[in-house]
């Protein structure tokens, strides 16, 4: 019953979010600000994590494929598949759920407890639309770019550290990452990314928007936003993998 109550409330909030924006010029300005804050602001952490994870996947693969029956290019192949299919879309989205999700929930939650959302409502502004729609649109637009950058940097990190540490040669690695490449893998990853971006922003906004109380409750809302976004990302990862890859 509790789950149904929250699902209904979440659905009603989304209905308010997707109403026509009060003024398109304001929405456009907010959208650019959010793209900068949610997307460009996350580029640094995405880049660092991607390079190091790519490197670790390559080194791990090289050591575990230490058999005469496994070709040397398998290291590059495993890195490519791991990065494109799971690491970049799913793990980076989980990291963004932590970074962006908590930021959204605490920002909107603070606005709620300090009556700023009430002030918007009294002015006749659809606060859900004004606050949430630019964030949601920005994340859905910018996250695929972040993920593509993450894919590139992850594979590059694998090459850099794999070749640098001598566990794989440059030729074998590059041959491996090109071997039987199916572009649908990238499409699958980008579809997942868009769904995860929607989950992160909408679930975090929901928890922030319905915060009651004070500073303590804002912190709790922020934690809940990260926990529920992460669980939903994992659940939808399973569903989408089954739907798109089976």
């Amino acid at each position, binding site marked *: 019953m509790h789950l149904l109550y929250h699902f209904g409330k979440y659905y009603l909030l989304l209905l308010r979010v997707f109403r026509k924006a*009060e*003024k398109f010029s*304001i929405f456009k300005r907010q959208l650019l600000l959010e793209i900068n804050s949610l997307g460009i602001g996350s580029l640094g952490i995405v880049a660092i994590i991607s390079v190091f994870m790519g490197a670790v996947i390559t080194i791990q693969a090289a050591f575990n494929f230490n058999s005469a029956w496994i070709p040397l290019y398998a290291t590059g192949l495993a890195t490519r598949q791991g990065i494109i299919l799971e690491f970049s879309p799913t793990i980076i989205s989980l990291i963004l759920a932590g970074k962006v999700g908590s930021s959204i929930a605490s920002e909107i939650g*603070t606005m709620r407890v*300090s*009556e*700023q959302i*009430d*002030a918007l*409502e*009294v*002015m*006749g*502004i*659809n606060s859900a639309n004004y606050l949430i729609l630019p964030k949601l649109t920005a994340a859905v637009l910018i996250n695929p770019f972040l993920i593509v950058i993450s894919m590139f940097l992850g594979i590059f990190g694998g090459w850099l550290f794999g070749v640098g540490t001598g566990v794989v040669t440059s030729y074998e690695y590059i041959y491996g990452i090109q071997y039987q490449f199916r572009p649908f893998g990238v499409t699958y990853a980008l579809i997942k990314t868009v769904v995860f971006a929607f989950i992160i922003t909408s679930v975090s906004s929901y928890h922030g928007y319905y915060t009651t109380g004070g500073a303590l409750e804002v912190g709790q809302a922020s934690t809940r936003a990260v926990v529920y976004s992460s669980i939903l990302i994992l659940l939808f990862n399973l569903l989408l993998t089954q739907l798109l890859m089976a």
Partner: protein
Amino acid sequence: MIEVRNIYKSFGENKVLEDISFVFEQGKCNLLIGESGSGKTTLAKCMVGLQLPDSGAILYGNRNFVQMNFDEQKKIRKEIGMLFQGGALFDSMTVEDNVMFPLTMFTNKTAEEMRERANFCLNRVKLPNAGKLYPAELSGGMKKRVAIARAISAEPHYLICDEPNSGLDPRTSIVIDELIKEITYEYNITTIVITHDMNSVLEIGDNVAFLYKGHLLWKGNKEQILHADQKELIDFVYATKFLKEFRKRVVE
């Protein structure tokens, strides 16, 4: 003019408002007074649609706010300026942007015209040089004045102030009261002030309603309130030892 008729509101078993009827008159400072928890803020929230009354009517002129749909309520809300207890200024915007905000959202004025209006409103609340500051850089009294400037920037027909003096020293409270009074008379708007500050009542109380545990117990004005013979109101007005002594010596 705003009229509330037979308003009832409860939260679960807790009855917060019971059969409240009152007329808030145009061009006057209408005060809703009462102890904390008496239902003043809940009534104000019902009047602006932040909460729904269980039953009753809220009439803006002859338009019943309770029976309106979202879009119709939005039209009324654009005629309301509200001053919240904590100011509710937008932290991410400068003072000037805060004051310009209602104009940005609902008018087609140029940036220059909006800036001009914002500066006029800031001058009106005696904060001519605060435009470039952020809310975090303002004192409590300045925040309240900026909130008043924002509330009047779109030239509202109704001004609702929720405890405008809370957390302010007596001198700043007087400044805020005088500002509210001046604005009300100057623009001939319907002003509602929710307060438990007796100084405000005696300063600006043209039309006063006393709420006690969700009931409207007394109506009158600042001249009548000192001589009222309603027990709960007497306890509220003469709450301190000093005032009780004053009543014994002067009023009785």
